[in-house]
């Protein structure tokens, strides 16, 4: 099975050639999911380049040829100057992280810049004396654009920095021979031709060609997805034996090699850049915001143009009409929203980082919330990523071992004599050792030199028996046959720790059936008994049962060598095997598994109740995969696969109706033969799916399949080869501990603790932020009408302008900013993890009810309230509302300095200007006061404010305070700065809008009441946003 991986890999590669053919008119649409042909071409190019590059010949060259080719010497290495030159020429040996400008940054710039140009244009065409206002406006708009741009960039850069610092946390070192000396240099400074030495446990720092090796194996798993080191002799350099690739780790032994590729030119680097070529879909929130911008822009532009036409046909000057147009657009564009959304997202990102989800791309925060399918890895994510002893079988009984994270609670019966023997075998027949110098580290966290099973056994015995190394010292090892795949057993011979007993103890462990073959007796309750059919039967039952749990089973046996035949001085020779290896005494079985993390079952249940489908994708054996899936609840306790049903009913698999099965276990082999339609069918028909024996490349296929179902797919992965799938997924989640840099680069999010449960908390945060963004946007949109109406009425009814453009900007970017951010701190109204994930296309961020309710209900009420304040101010100063109509022309004429008001008083132009500014301030204050009410009503969408708690979110009150303080400062502090158009407003005007604010509150409470009273009614459908 494992050998399938490379084939699948090459399938992937030749798959791209098919795409090439498609492009040249073959017409066979094999590669779905990509619409952009240009992108496709680019991808092709990259992939083919990869394939070309992969055809290295270096592994076939002799060492001499190599030395010539790279101008190096395997003994003395490169000289420092050579190395420096090469470093300068080829760059550091590091992957270039893909750099992207966040989509969201681009959103306000277009609008703002155009406005700005228009403003400047107007200033240019206007005569010099009257253009000062336009200059201010232009400057302010430019400032807005620049500031919001800088702000968003800063936010993005900050989160990128977190990432950068994260990956630099552990600088990799390499031992290199230069100037005939061994030097330790940072891996980044390696150059082609360097001779490097690798020790066991090191990461290979670059693509190297092996020169010599001592007992060294390499784990290329992050590259090929293979889980165990495998021996390869292919022509394909990926599979050949002597070149090793960057990022691979070498678990044992030492080796020397020559660097043949560095940085982005390594195979890893090429795969990473391939990943960046995979079309990264727009994040759902980016789509939503785009949708929102379309709505706002549509409203702004259509109203703007409509009123431009009206203005022109009302015989306004074209120039004036353009200023109206700007006013209308400024009133409509929520300038502060970008900053708000960015801050909101980064707040959530911070909160998620605390919960071990490091979000690289801010928008991914929300994506996680709308996730409907999670394709999860098994190893490390769902499981603890270490083999652990799960069951023991001796004395004809199965015992359960504690597999929790700390192993502390081993409850099985340890009094039996059989256990004494078994524990001795476990301890002695084991080559794994703790790395020295970790006395203070808890046993389970100690680093072990040795393979996974031996590590498990070592830790298991250390926990139960105490100091294993001491026991081994007392039972000196005299001979050993290590495990190999032909023998399938491991054997060692020890002196006993009983000084009176001069016999040697031979211990053996291995594949149970092999071990049993070598046994003639079996130990029961500490007594040796002949191995008869019934005990053999019992053995097989136990073996099958443990195997069926997906566990790796080992058999243990021993033999005391008779002292007469094997005296103390006897020389054991493992090559000739001058000692018996049969008629041993079988002691017991022990099974190991990589156990699920204890938090995972809960998390999976939560996902399920949140309507998220969890699909396991693993390279492991189907049985193991299924067992783990069952134990964590990915396959729930009462659901069966087709095979299960067949087995239960004792009928052939073909006869089972597929409808009866809820779960499915699909292997990579089966997946390979499936058509996309079959895959779609599989994904829709079964609610619980496990993909086993899959290659990381097949993940991409699975992800695409899920995306065809309109699902928002989250993918977890750690290997380099996962990176295309991570990129392709709506949200790629890389593992912080086990993950490779390439995976982390491709991912949108990094799980710092590799724990699946962290994803669920992330989902919760993501959903909350979506709800809260809705509230924020509703809050922000509302005042747009109150800002827009003045312009419309100004144009149509000819009132003195109620609110100036700059004043509007002070609302959008001043008083409203902190309150809208405060909404991000709002708690969920109900259990958000009990509802289905939002549908990408149906549950929009800004839907019709939201826009209508914000614009036409609350927005109009707000406009009305602000107009009341405006009219109050004018009336108190002498201009009654009726006198204001069509006053505009006279009002704005500079030469009229004795304009009569309703009481016959006469006003100079400056007085009127001042009154106009007072009007702006009054209108501003009117909106501000009502925005406080708006803020409070936006706390909830369905529940009453009193259910939600008025004071639970303290930040809201900070927001309200900020609104009031900013308004006070603007009016009383900056009231004398004429450029800002604020004046000192009489205190009583601040309260004119209060009744309106209360009205808004009451109105919204009534709306919510009816929504709660009549769910599903017309009211609910149209008034709930």
């Amino acid at each position, binding site marked *: 099975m494992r050998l399938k991986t490379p084939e699948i890999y090459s399938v992937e590669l030749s798959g791209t050639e098919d795409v090439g053919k498609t492009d040249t008119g073959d017409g066979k649409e094999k590669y779905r999911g990509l619409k952009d042909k240009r992108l496709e071409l680019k991808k092709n190019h990259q992939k083919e380049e990869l394939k070309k590059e992969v055809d290295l010949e270096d592994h076939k060259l002799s060492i001499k040829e190599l030395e010539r080719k790279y101008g190096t010497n395997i003994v003395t290495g490169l000289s420092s100057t050579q190395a420096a030159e090469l470093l300068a020429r080829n760059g550091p040996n590091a992957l270039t992280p893909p750099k992207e400008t966040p989509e969201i940054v681009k959103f306000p710039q277009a609008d703002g810049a155009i406005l700005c140009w228009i403003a400047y244009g107007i200033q240019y065409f206007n005569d010099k004396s009257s253009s000062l206002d336009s200059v201010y406006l232009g400057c302010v708009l430019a400032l807005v654009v620049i500031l919001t741009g800088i702000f968003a960039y800063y936010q993005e850069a900050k989160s990128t920095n977190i990432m950068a610092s994260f990956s630099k946390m552990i600088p990799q070192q390499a031992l290199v021979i230069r100037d005939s000396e061994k030097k330790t240099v940072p891996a980044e400074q390696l150059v082609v031709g360097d001779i490097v030495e690798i020790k066991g446990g090191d990461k290979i720092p670059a693509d190297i060609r092996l020169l010599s090796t001592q007992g060294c194996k390499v784990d290329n798993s992050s590259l090929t997805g293979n889980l165990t080191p495998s021996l390869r002799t292919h022509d394909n350099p990926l599979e050949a034996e002597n070149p090793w690739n960057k990022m691979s780790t070498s678990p044992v032994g030492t080796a020397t090699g020559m660097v043949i590729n560095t940085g982005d030119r390594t195979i890893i680097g090429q795969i990473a850049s391939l990943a960046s070529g995979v079309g990264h879909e727009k994040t759902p929130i980016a789509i939503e915001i785009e949708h929102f911008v379309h709505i706002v822009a549509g409203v702004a532009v259509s109203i703007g143009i409509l009123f431009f036409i009206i203005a022109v046909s009302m015989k306004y000057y074209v120039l004036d009409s353009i200023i109206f147009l700007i006013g209308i657009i400024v009133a409509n564009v929520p300038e502060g929203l970008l900053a708000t959304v960015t801050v909101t997202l980064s707040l959530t990102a911070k909160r998620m980082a605390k919960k071990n989800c490091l979000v690289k791309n801010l928008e991914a925060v929300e994506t996680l919330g709308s996730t409907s399918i999670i394709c999860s890895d098994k190893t490390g994510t769902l499981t603890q990523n270490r083999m652990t002893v799960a069951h023991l079988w001796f004395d004809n009984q199965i015992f359960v071992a504690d597999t929790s994270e700390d192993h502390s609670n081993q409850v099985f019966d340890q009094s039996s004599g059989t256990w004494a023997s078994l524990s001795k075998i476990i301890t002695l027949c084991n080559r794994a050792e703790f790395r020295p110098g970790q006395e203070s580290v808890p046993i389970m966290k100690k680093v072990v030199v040795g393979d996974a099973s031996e590590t498990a056994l070592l830790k298991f015995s250390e926990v139960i028996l105490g100091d294993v190394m001491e026991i081994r010292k007392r039972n000196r090892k005299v001979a050993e046959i290590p495990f190999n795949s032909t023998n399938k057993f491991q054997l060692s011979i020890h002196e006993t720790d009983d000084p009176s007993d001069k016999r040697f103890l031979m211990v053996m462990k291995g594949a149970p059936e092999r071990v049993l073959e070598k046994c003639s007796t079996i130990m029961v309750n500490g007594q040796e008994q002949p191995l008869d059919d019934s005990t053999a039967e019992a053995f097989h039952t136990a073996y099958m049962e443990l195997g069926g749990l997906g566990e790796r089973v080992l058999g243990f046996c021993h033999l005391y060598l008779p002292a007469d035949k094997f005296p103390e001085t006897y020389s054991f020779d493992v090559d000739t095997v001058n000692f018996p290896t049969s008629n041993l005494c079988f002691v017991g079985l022990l099974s190991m598994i990589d156990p699920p993390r204890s938090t995972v079952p809960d998390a999976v249940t939560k996902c399920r109740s949140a309507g998220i489908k969890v699909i396991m994708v693993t390279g492991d054996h189907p049985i193991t995969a299924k067992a783990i899936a069952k134990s964590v609840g990915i396959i729930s306790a009462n659901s069966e696969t087709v095979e299960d049903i067949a087995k239960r009913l004792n009928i052939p698999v073909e006869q089972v109706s597929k409808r009866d099965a809820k779960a499915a276990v699909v292997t990579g082999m089966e997946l390979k033969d499936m058509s996309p339609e079959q895959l779609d069918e599989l994904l829709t028909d079964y609610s619980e799916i496990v993909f086993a024996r899959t290659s990381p490349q097949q993940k991409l296929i699975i992800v695409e399949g899920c995306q065809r179902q309109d699902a928002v797919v989250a993918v977890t992965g750690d290997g380099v080869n996962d990176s295309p799938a991570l990129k392709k997924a709506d949200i790629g989640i890389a593992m912080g501990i086990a993950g490779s840099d390439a995976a982390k680069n491709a991912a949108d999010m990094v799980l710092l603790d590799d724990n699946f449960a962290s994803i669920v908390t992330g989902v919760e945060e993501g959903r909350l932020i979506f709800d809260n963004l809705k509230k924020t946007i509703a809050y922000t949109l509302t005042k747009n009408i109150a800002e827009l109406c003045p312009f419309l009425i100004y144009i149509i009814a000819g009132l003195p302008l109620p609110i100036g453009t700059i004043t509007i900007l002070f609302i959008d970017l001043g008083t409203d900013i902190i309150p809208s951010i405060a909404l991000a701190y709002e708690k969920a109204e109900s259990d958000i993890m009990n509802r289905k994930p939002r549908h990408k296309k149906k549950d929009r961020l800004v839907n019709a009810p939201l826009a209508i309710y914000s614009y036409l209900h609350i927005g109009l009420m707000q406009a009305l309230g602000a107009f009341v304040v405006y009219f109050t101010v004018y009336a108190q100063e002498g201009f009654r509302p009726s006198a204001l109509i069509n006053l505009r022309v006279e009002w704005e004429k500079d*030469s009229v300095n004795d304009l009569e008001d309703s009481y016959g008083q006469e006003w100079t132009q400056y007085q009127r200007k001042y009154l106009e500014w007072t009007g702006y301030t009054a209108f501003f204050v009117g909106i501000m006061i009502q925005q406080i009410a708006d803020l409070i009503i936006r706390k909830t969408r369905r529940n009453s404010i009193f259910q939600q708690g008025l004071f639970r979110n303290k930040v809201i009150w900070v927001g309200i305070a900020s609104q009031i303080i900013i308004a006070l400062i603007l009016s009383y502090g900056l009231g004398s700065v004429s450029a800002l158009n604020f004046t000192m407003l009489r205190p009583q005007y601040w309260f004119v809008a209060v009744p309106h604010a209360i009205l808004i509150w009451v109105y919204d409470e009534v709306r919510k009441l009816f929504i709660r009273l009549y769910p599903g009614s017309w009211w609910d459908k149209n008034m709930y946003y």
Partner: protein
Amino acid sequence: MRRQLRSRRAPAFPYGYRYRLDDQDEVNQNYLADEEEEAEEEARVMVVHDLEEEEEEEEKEEEEEEEEEGQGQPTSNALWQKLQIVNEHLWDPEKRMSLARTGQSWRVMIRPFAHSLNFNFNVSEPDTWQHYVISLNGFLQGYNDSLQEEMNVDCPPGQYFIQDGNEDEDKKACQFKRSFLKNCSGLEDPTFGYSTGQPCILLKMNRIVGFRPELGDPVKVSCKVQRGDENDIRSINYYPESASFDLRYYPYYGKLTHVNYTSPLVAMHFTDVVKNQAVPVQCQLKGKGIINDVINDRFVGRVIFTLNIET
């Protein structure tokens, strides 16, 4: 003016007229004490008292303050000034109410009305000044003697024409006859002097409800060359000869009741101005507490215009 509005809603309360008249003479001495008393009363009967009175009080008070500021402040530091301004705008401790507008003071405007304040005309080309004449004629229609005699009363000069009573009652207006303007009335010289290069310019103060010229002294008008040689204007005749706005035209009660009110005028007859060059003229109001040097609003207590008479 806001008082005015509120008074429309408030029940009438005939109060204070006689009281005002009584202490009118000793205004200067008893002013402050009087104010305080008034303010207390106001606090008690805020909603239901005659607001005209209050208005007057307020205006007077403000002028007083402005005066103080003008005299006492120039040496204090900027912050203190700013605080003063804020204080003045926000809260008036004596009135126990807040104020919003910058201290009220007289604005002035001139006639003939033109789009700019540059009077350029050529004596020998009637087309260049005809529109001024038309504007003045039109403006003075309301001042025709017959009309004034028919509509308005001839009230005694030299004192405020204060009318108590129900605020809804129509107020009488004092006559301001066109003939008061003598040579600038357009009666003798229908071209208002423009045909001879001796243009008449009429100056009026912008109406402010309830506002009164300073404390019993009529406001005077005085014009001079704003920049340049003072001798560019060798003589100006003022009509009425006092060059002042008589007290009897104040206070103004607002056009809703003071229907036929005609603003008093002062005509400036520039009888000997240097010809063929632009002469900037500044006409200022002179009187106690009159502000005439505000920079932002160029019409506070003064008006600046240019005469450019070509021959």
